[in-house]
């Protein structure tokens, strides 16, 4: 057929989708949150180990989804765990996605208010953003994946150019000593380094939309590898450029690093501006991804059509954005999201897989 009617995404789109879902506000705050817990320059090791820990999680998520080709978690949870428990689990997942989406917009609004639009009311920043997201999400997963595909290379290019220019501040001594206080701080920071991967639950729905679900393992591991690389470079460059102490005290360490030098003789002297511009776009993709997941969830759990759900979720998203009262609240929320993520991981993929294993392998039931 010449005109495609099915809403499937290619493998490369799936990779970018996953990467863009996870790479959101994290990159602006991650160096601080991780370094705060380790309090040594070894935070990059922590990130590395965090990636290694997250890898089996990803594999579990993919493998579980592959058992039900073409079905999202919202559809197969009921088949595994029974109707009501399945719905309850999925509702938790939806709430989780909504909270993350609100968290991302709030972070974006805070950054924008602080650096670009001082004195603008918060709603004036949040509302157009949510509406624009609704417009894009209305187009289904394909439109979102395509916008991701446009934004991702640009944002990576700008990010790495900014990092490259910031290398003039890089001092290897800031990263030394390696393991100066032993392995303990590295593992102490593990919790916060796993938190930066929150959002990879989208795999549970993403696999259902892949054109070639067999390549899902490869694609998702590819996505996680890209994220790991970006996080590693970020933390090395930021900690190396700013030293541990100033990273811990700064609110937005990545932006602060880029702000701390000027490129003379260039049209834009301070690179934090292009970086922020690009990061706004990245956050948009990020937000749209969660928005999509939650509307898809609601529509599939309650069997209502997809478009009205998008509109119905708009005020919920807005409230979830406005709920934190201060920046501190916001960062606490970020930590809470991380904890929720771990809890949900235990509840959704692990529990579901166990039940599935027991029912199929043990009781020989047909699920």
């Amino acid at each position, binding site marked *: *057929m*010449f*005109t*495609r009617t099915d809403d499937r995404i*290619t493998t*490369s*789109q799936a990779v970018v989708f996953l990467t863009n879902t996870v790479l959101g506000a994290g990159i602006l705050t991650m160096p601080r949150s991780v370094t705060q817990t380790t309090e040594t320059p070894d935070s990059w090791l922590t990130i590395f180990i965090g990636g290694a820990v997250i890898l089996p999680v990803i594999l579990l998520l993919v493998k579980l989804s592959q058992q039900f080709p073409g079905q999202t978690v919202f559809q197969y949870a009921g088949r595994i765990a029974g109707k009501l428990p399945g719905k309850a689990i999925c509702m938790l997942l939806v709430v989780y996605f909504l909270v993350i989406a609100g968290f991302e917009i709030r972070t974006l609004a805070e950054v*924008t208010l602080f650096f*670009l*639009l001082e004195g*603008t009311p918060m*709603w*004036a*920043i949040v*509302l*157009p*953003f*949510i*509406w*624009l997201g*609704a*417009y*894009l999400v*209305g*187009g289904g997963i*394909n*439109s979102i*994946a*395509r*916008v991701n*595909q*446009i*934004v991702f290379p640009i944002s990576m290019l700008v990010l790495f150019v900014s990092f490259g220019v910031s290398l003039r501040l890089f001092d290897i001594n800031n990263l030394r000593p390696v393991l100066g206080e032993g392995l303990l701080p590295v593992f102490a920071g593990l919790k916060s380094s796993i938190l930066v991967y929150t959002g990879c639950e989208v795999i549970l729905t993403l696999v259902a939309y892949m054109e070639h679900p067999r390549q899902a393992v490869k694609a998702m591991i590819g996505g996680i590898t890209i994220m790991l690389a970006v996080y590693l470079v970020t933390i090395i460059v930021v900690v190396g450029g700013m030293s541990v102490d100033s990273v811990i005290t700064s609110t937005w360490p990545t932006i602060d690093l880029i702000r701390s030098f000027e490129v003379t003789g260039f*049209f*834009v*002297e*301070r690179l934090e*501006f292009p970086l922020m*511009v690009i990061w*706004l*776009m990245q956050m*948009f993709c990020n937000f749209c991804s969660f928005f999509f997941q939650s509307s898809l969830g609601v529509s599939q759990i309650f069997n209502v059509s997809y478009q009205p759900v998008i*509109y*119905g979720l*708009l*005020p919920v*998203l*807005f*409230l979830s954005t*406005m*709920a934190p*009262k201060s920046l501190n609240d916001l960062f606490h929320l970020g930590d809470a999201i991380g904890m929720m993520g771990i809890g949900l991981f235990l509840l959704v993929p692990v529990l579901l897989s166990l039940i599935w294993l027991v029912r199929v392998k043990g009781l020989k039931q047909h699920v």
Partner: protein
Amino acid sequence: MLSSVIDYIPGWNVWTQAILAFLIPILASKIYKKMYAITGKGKKPDTADSKKAETLLEPSGAPFSGDYEADIQVIRDRIGGNSDLIFREIRMEKTNVRAALFYVAGMHNDRVLDLHLMEFLMFEAGSDTINEPGRIRDRLPFSCLLEASDLNSFNRSVMFGHIGLMIEGELGGLLIEYPNGANRSVQEPLSEALLRGPRLGFTEVLSENTSMLRRQGFSDQLEIKTQKVGTRLRKDLALAYIKDIVNPDLLEEVSARIGKMDFDFIAESGYVEQLIEDNYLSPFQQVQNTERPDRAIAALLEGRIAILLDGTPFVLIVPSTFSMLLQSPEDYYERWLPGSLLRMLRFLAAFLALMAPALYISFISFHPGLIPTELAMSIIETRQGVPFPSLIEVLILEVSIEILREAGIRLPKPVGPAMGIVGGLIIGDAAVQAGIVSPFLVIVVAVTAISSFSIPIYSAGLSLRLLRFVGMLFAAFLGMYGTILFFLLLCSHLTKLKSFGVPYLTPVSPFRLRDWKDLFFRAPLALMKRRPAMTKTQDDKRKS
């Protein structure tokens, strides 16, 4: 515990905003859907309607009675009232049979008519020519000879410019000679001038246009199918494609959409474009138009379909994608390095034409700290006397530039450049002197205008001009943040847009590496071994 939860329940103003967040998009989408339902569905009449339309435009014509006198009388009754219809009755010398010629004044070369047609009919056509009823078509020495099926179609064809011939004792009327009304000669395409490349442009005559396509090269696979469109004034429309390249599903889709067109008169190919396009609410054109046969044939070889309409030099090419708007045939005629340079230059120009005023507004009004300090100082110095906010300032100059441009098109050729000088130079300078606008803005607007002139397709330039104003509004409300939102809005819209099933942003997204050879830069011809993936052609090798 409970009190801390209550503490986080937001105030009433947030709730109001949340309700607004819900209501405004619902309203917007309702309006959008309403508008789409009004016009968007107009092109897709359901079967009952289309049947009615069919009967309307094909009234079951009265058949020829076979009685010479009676038929002539019917014809004269129906169309004899036209003062430009010439009716001439002749007697064939050799057989002594009466015949009648009907034709419209001004449609034929009188010399051919007199010398050739009349002479033959009156003096040469003998009994051997016409004594066998029903076989007369084979015996008349005219290359163009059609038989009218009924009186109505006979009348229509005569009025359109055919010469109608009725012979006593023959059932039915004959149509000789194609209409040959006033035409202009072949000229260089006005809207798509090139330095290097053929100078030939399409004309208003369909048969000439199709022949121009044919003469691009020997092939028996170039297929041109003609059909009539329009419900009241009917016109010829031709679909041209290369049979062993084009995707059959695409062809079917295009024919179906053309078949669904329901309009009494298709005046120009722009009508066709608007009646068959996917989304009429989009600012982007989803059908490309061109005056150049070389461009059309190149598109056909990429697996696209050309739609030619009688009476216009603009040929439509479907499906079309965003990247085609910034391509010029010259990219391929020049060597690949300069071609690529020009291509990238055009992308930059398109970006400037779209975003430059918006960036100006957001930098000047919102973030002067983000541009280098000296530059910011000098701009602000020159803006000191300007009493308006930057949006009004930009609007003043942009609107006047657009008016100038519009005026320049209407003016006769000798006056046009003078107008440009008066408008551009004098008014611009005077506006700066008078302190209405800042000199830096004049530079920005001039760069914007020049950039938009460099867009190789006029209608694409129009979309950018339109969107530029939208971008300025976004920038005026939210500065750089608004400009980014505008860019994201464009991206979101473009990713949703399709042209005949082909995503508009191909090959950027969906990502098709194969087609990147011909996107931001133009790869050497030796590398372009395959046709674009987006058109899903039957045969995708360009090299054997």
